[in-house]
């Protein structure tokens, strides 16, 4: 290896290392702080050192019983978060793949218009239409239900867009060969679209799971019942600047992280190397 190459390689590594520090730093800081007492955190702010109260804080969180009737427990919150996360992920993925299938393969006249209308919804995030969405949800009787938390987050145009771009790369002949082999619209969807889109599906599923999992403001509005607390809302309940609060943050990160690990091969392949 010649010197300029070594230099460049060193420089690349430096940039990557800085990037890793930038991304992992806050999590490490949170984790280390979660081993300190609430008093230390209140006095000296976040901590970069090991505090020795790991067990205290984490057991405090895991045995938490809060709320009016002590119904807000870690397990109940985890259950709610999972219902919301998986609900949002499943429905978003399902609607995305179906709408993209319709827009790309059924050449109805206004397909292009429909697609752009779907895409325009990106400009109206949930936060921008809280009041109206609340009205709709209320009139449908969705207040204080899981469905009420899930449904407004489901319309994610980005999923439709992702699938559409992929479907457009499929050669026309694939469809034609399938038609000549006796495939109808439903069969083509099941036998071709779903298996061919697996990597895409994994990526979209993870992204929308995180959107559902990390929701805060909307669940706060739509649910007043203690039984609907999610982990993210629990952080607020337990005190975000306290030691146990930090511990709950770390616990909250774990399930999406595990999901990402499980799907990483598929998901990253799609996001990085678009098919050759």
């Amino acid at each position, binding site marked *: 290896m010649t010197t300029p190459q070594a230099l460049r390689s060193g420089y690349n590594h430096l940039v990557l290392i800085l990037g890793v520090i930038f991304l992992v730093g806050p999590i490490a800081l949170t984790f280390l702080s979660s081993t300190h007492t609430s008093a230390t955190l209140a006095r000296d702010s976040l901590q970069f050192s090991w505090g020795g109260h790991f067990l205290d804080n984490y057991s405090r969180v895991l045995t938490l019983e809060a709320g009016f009737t002590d119904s807000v427990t870690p397990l109940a919150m985890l259950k709610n978060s999972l219902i919301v996360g998986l609900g949002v992920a499943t429905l978003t993925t399902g609607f995305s793949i179906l709408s993209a299938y319709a827009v790309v393969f059924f050449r109805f006249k206004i397909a292009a218009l429909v697609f752009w209308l779907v895409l325009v919804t990106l400009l109206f995030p949930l936060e921008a239409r809280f009041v109206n969405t609340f009205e709709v949800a209320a009139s449908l009787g969705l207040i204080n239900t899981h469905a009420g938390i899930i449904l407004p987050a489901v319309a994610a145009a980005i999923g439709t867009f992702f699938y559409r771009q992929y479907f457009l790369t499929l050669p026309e*002949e*694939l469809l034609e*060969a399938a038609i*000549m082999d*006796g495939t109808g619209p439903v069969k083509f969807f099941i036998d071709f679209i779903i298996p*061919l889109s697996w990597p895409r599906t994994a990526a979209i599923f993870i992204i929308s799971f995180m959107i559902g999992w990390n929701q805060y403001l909307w669940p706060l509005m739509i649910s007043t019942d203690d039984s609907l607390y999610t982990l993210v809302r629990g952080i607020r309940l337990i005190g975000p600047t306290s030691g146990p609060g930090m511990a709950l943050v770390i616990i909250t990160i774990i399930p999406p992280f595990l999901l990402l690990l499980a799907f990483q091969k598929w998901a990253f392949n799609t996001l990085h190397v678009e098919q050759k």
Partner: protein
Amino acid sequence: MAGVELTGVRKIYPNGAEAVRGVDMTIEHGEFIVFVGPSGCGKSTLLRMVAGLESITEGEISIDGRIINEVSPADRDVAMVFQNYALYPHMTVRGNMSYGLKNRGNSKAEIHEKVEEAAKMLRIHDFLDRRPQQLSGGQRQRVAMGRAIVREPKVFLFDEPLSNLDAKLRVQMRIEIKRLQRRMDVTSIYVTHDQTEAMTLADRLAVINDGRIEQMGAPLELYNNPTTLFVASFIGSPQINLVPVVFDGDKLISGDIALSGFKDLPTDADLVLGIRPDDLTQNGEGEVSLRVDLVEQHGAENLIYGALLGAAAEEGEETEICIKVDQQTLPKIDATLKLGVNKSRALVFRKDNGQRVL
């Protein structure tokens, strides 16, 4: 038993473009028919209409006496081999070949047997469990054919199936396709723009131009007796030599060149004389001369390209012609060769409508 019958078939797209302008054709059972023509002539559209991938605007197509205009592609009893193979990327070779059979409700044992048999015939037995991405171009081509064969269709349709292969493989697969078709005795329609492929594969070929059948017949028939200038210039490699001429009642005249020995030709129209490169011979007393421009060595023979001296020049361009000579004949550039014309093989066309007059 009739094979495929096309009656007054037309294709007009919604935007008004007319791709096929009235085609009548009878294809006998077991015949190998090639549609050949330049790109955009409508040959693929015609094939896709037989396949059911394009609707038929007007006219009728029938297979074995059954009109199939309104029959779905899957129920037409045809199988198609696509230009880019269109293999199913997420299925193994076996999966690709069985898929259509499965949809048709064949039993597992039946499918297994048919796939094994086709795989043996095509020598793709060793990679039945691989995915298409793991195969070479030639192997993918075989799988695509295998997928068509297992269906045991009444008609095979090929849409330029060899154009993605390299030259050597193309020749090899060409021979294999022909052999296979003979062996299976299935009516086949094959679309190509390559006239060599067309000539070598076809029992009969249909030269298509601008949505119409220009001429249909056995390859040699079309080579020897083209009815139009288009067919004459499309069939044959190297291309036929074309010289603009007029007839003065006795001789064909082109500039300073006068060829005698012709009669009963129209004197009131511009004509085109067509002579195949094989019908010009080097000959000391030749009637025309060629100034050598380029010698192409093909091994067994050489092709000599050059200007036809004295011919009526069109817009300052000299008339370029080509002759075929043996491998020993290697004239110098700019040398002048005297050529004899085999007049019994000369073709004469009207310039205005391209119809043959001799």
